[in-house]
C-alpha cells in the first residue's frame, strides 16, 4: 500500500442509515464506504482528489440500541407551494415546529471502532502542483496531529468520530472474537453517484475476520 492511508476511528455510537429505513432510522451493521469517505474528507479533501475506500476493518462486536427523539416533520408539498406562489402569499404554508412534531426512533450502533484503508486518485480538477505525494503528506500530517476541517462523524453529526492515523508498520488491532466467522451483511450502500443525479450504488458486503473488502467504484460488483 504505497499510496494508501489507514485511519482508525471509534466512537460511542454510530448511525449509518439504511436507505430503505430512513424514517425510523435503522443503521447498517457496519461503516459504509460512503460514510468512510465522509470521515476522510472531514480531515482532508480538495476537488483535485477523490477518495476510494479499499477495505473496512470492523473491530468491535455489532450491537444496537434504540433512541427516540422529537424531530421536525416533513417538507411541504410542492403543489401547495405552487398554489401559494400563484396567490402571492405564504398564508396557509405555516410550519410550526412544535405542531409539526414527529417522534422518530433510531436504531443505532453502540461502541464502534473501525479501521479504514483507503487511497485517493487525482481528478480532472487537479492542477500542475497537485501531486499524490503532496495530498498524502497533508492527510497523514493532519491525521497524526488530530487536525480536521470539521470533526468527522459516525454517520450523523451528533455521533462524533475520534480518529488516529495508523502509521506504516503498525498492525491493525485484532477484531473481536465474535467477528471471526464469515458474515454476509447483504446489500450495502457503496456510495452515491453524484455524476448521475445522485443515484445510489450498492454492493454485496461480506465480512470475513472482521474485514469488509470494498470493490472498486467502477467494478462489475457495484450496482445501481
Amino acid at each position: 500500500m504505497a499510496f494508501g492511508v489507514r485511519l482508525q476511528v471509534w466512537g460511542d455510537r454510530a448511525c449509518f442509515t439504511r436507505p430503505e429505513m430512513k424514517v425510523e432510522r435503522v443503521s447498517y451493521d457496519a461503516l459504509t464506504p460512503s460514510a468512510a469517505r465522509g470521515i476522510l474528507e472531514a480531515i482532508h479533501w480538495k476537488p483535485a482528489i477523490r477518495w476510494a475506500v479499499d477495505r473496512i476493518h470492523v473491530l468491535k462486536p455489532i450491537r444496537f440500541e434504540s433512541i427516540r427523539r422529537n424531530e421536525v416533520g416533513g417538507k411541504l408539498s410542492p403543489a401547495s407551494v405552487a398554489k401559494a406562489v400563484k396567490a402571492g402569499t405564504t398564508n396557509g404554508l405555516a410550519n410550526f415546529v412544535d405542531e409539526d412534531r414527529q417522534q422518530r426512533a433510531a436504531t443505532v450502533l453502540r461502541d464502534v471502532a473501525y479501521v479504514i484503508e483507503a487511497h485517493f486518485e487525482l481528478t480532472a480538477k487537479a492542477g500542475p502542483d497537485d501531486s499524490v505525494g503532496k495530498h498524502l503528506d497533508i492527510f497523514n500530517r493532519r491525521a497524526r496531529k488530530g487536525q480536521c476541517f470539521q470533526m468527522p462523524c459516525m454517520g450523523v453529526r451528533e455521533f462524533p468520530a475520534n480518529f488516529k492515523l495508523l502509521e506504516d508498520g503498525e498492525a491493525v488491532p485484532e477484531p473481536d472474537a465474535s467477528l471471526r466467522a464469515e458474515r454476509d451483511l447483504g446489500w450495502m450502500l457503496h456510495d452515491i453517484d453524484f455524476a448521475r443525479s445522485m443515484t445510489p450504488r450498492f454492493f454485496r458486503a461480506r465480512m470475513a475476520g472482521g474485514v469488509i473488502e470494498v470493490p472498486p467504484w467502477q467494478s462489475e460488483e457495484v450496482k445501481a
Partner: protein
Amino acid sequence: MTAIAHRYEFVYLFDVTNGNPNGDPDAGNLPRLDPETNRGLVTDVCLKRKIRNFVSLAKEDAEGYAIYMQEKAVLNNQHEKAWKALDIAPDAKDGYKKLPKDEAKARELTAWMCRNFFDVRTFGAVMTTGVNTGQVRGPIQIAFASSIDPVVPLEVSITRMAVTTQKEAEDQSGDNRTMGRKHIIPYGLYRAHGFVSAKLAERTGFSDEDLALFWQALGNMFEHDRSAARGEMAARKLIVFQHDSAMGNAPAHVLFDAVSVQPAQPDGEAPARSFADYRVTVDKAAIPAGVTVHEHF
C-alpha cells in the same frame, strides 16, 4: 462579521436535582437511560433547543439574531423574507421550489439566512422545505450528554384535587381526585462534548461575538428553562480547549481524556447527591502544545 479563527472543543458539565432533564418518548417520559450502563442521557437536540431559546430571550430578535427553528415559528415566512429582501423573483414554473438556477443568487439566499438567523449560522439548517434557500452545515457539533454515574429514576405519584370531566366526578361520587405520576432523577451530573469547526464557521460567518454568546447560552440556558418537570438544573462547568490554528493542534479525544470527573470521596458509600460529591480535574500536563484551556464558570 469575521469568522472565528480557532478550532475549539468543549466539555460541558451540568446537573439535575430532583428533576427530569430529558424525557424518553419511548418510555412514557421516563428520563432517558442508556440501557447498557444505566447512565442517564440527554440528546444533542435537547441542548440545542435550550440554546436557541436562550438566544431568542437574550437577543429578543435583535438584527442578525433571529431564531429560525422557533417554537411556533413559521419557517416559510422566514424563507420568503430572504427572497423578498434580496428581490429575487420566483421562477415562473417552479415558484420557490428549487434554488435559483443562478448559483450566485442561491449563495446569496443562503448567506442572507446565515446573516439573519443565529441558529442557522451556528448549527446549520436544511432549508429545502418547499421554499428553498439551500442547505447549511453549521460549525457547532454537540454529542449526546451522558451522566457520570448510573442514575436511578424514581417514580413519584402525585394527586390532583380536581378532575377533568363531569363523568369522572360522577364515577367517584363527588370525591374528585386524580392520580398522576412524575419521574425524577434524585441527582445526576451530566457531561457533554462539543466541537466548533473554524472552517465551517468561515462559510456561515459564525463570529467571535457569536461564540461568546454561545458560551453565555451554555452558562445560563437552564436559568430560563425552569418548569415543573425539570427540577433544579444548573450548568456547573464549561471547559473550553482553544487550538492555536483553525485546523486544530491536537486530537479531540486526547483533550477530552484530560478532563476527569471523579467522586470526591473515592470510598464513599453513599450515592452522589450534589455537585460537591464530584471533583473535576483538568490534567494540564496532558494538554499538548498549541492548545489553551479556558474554564468559563
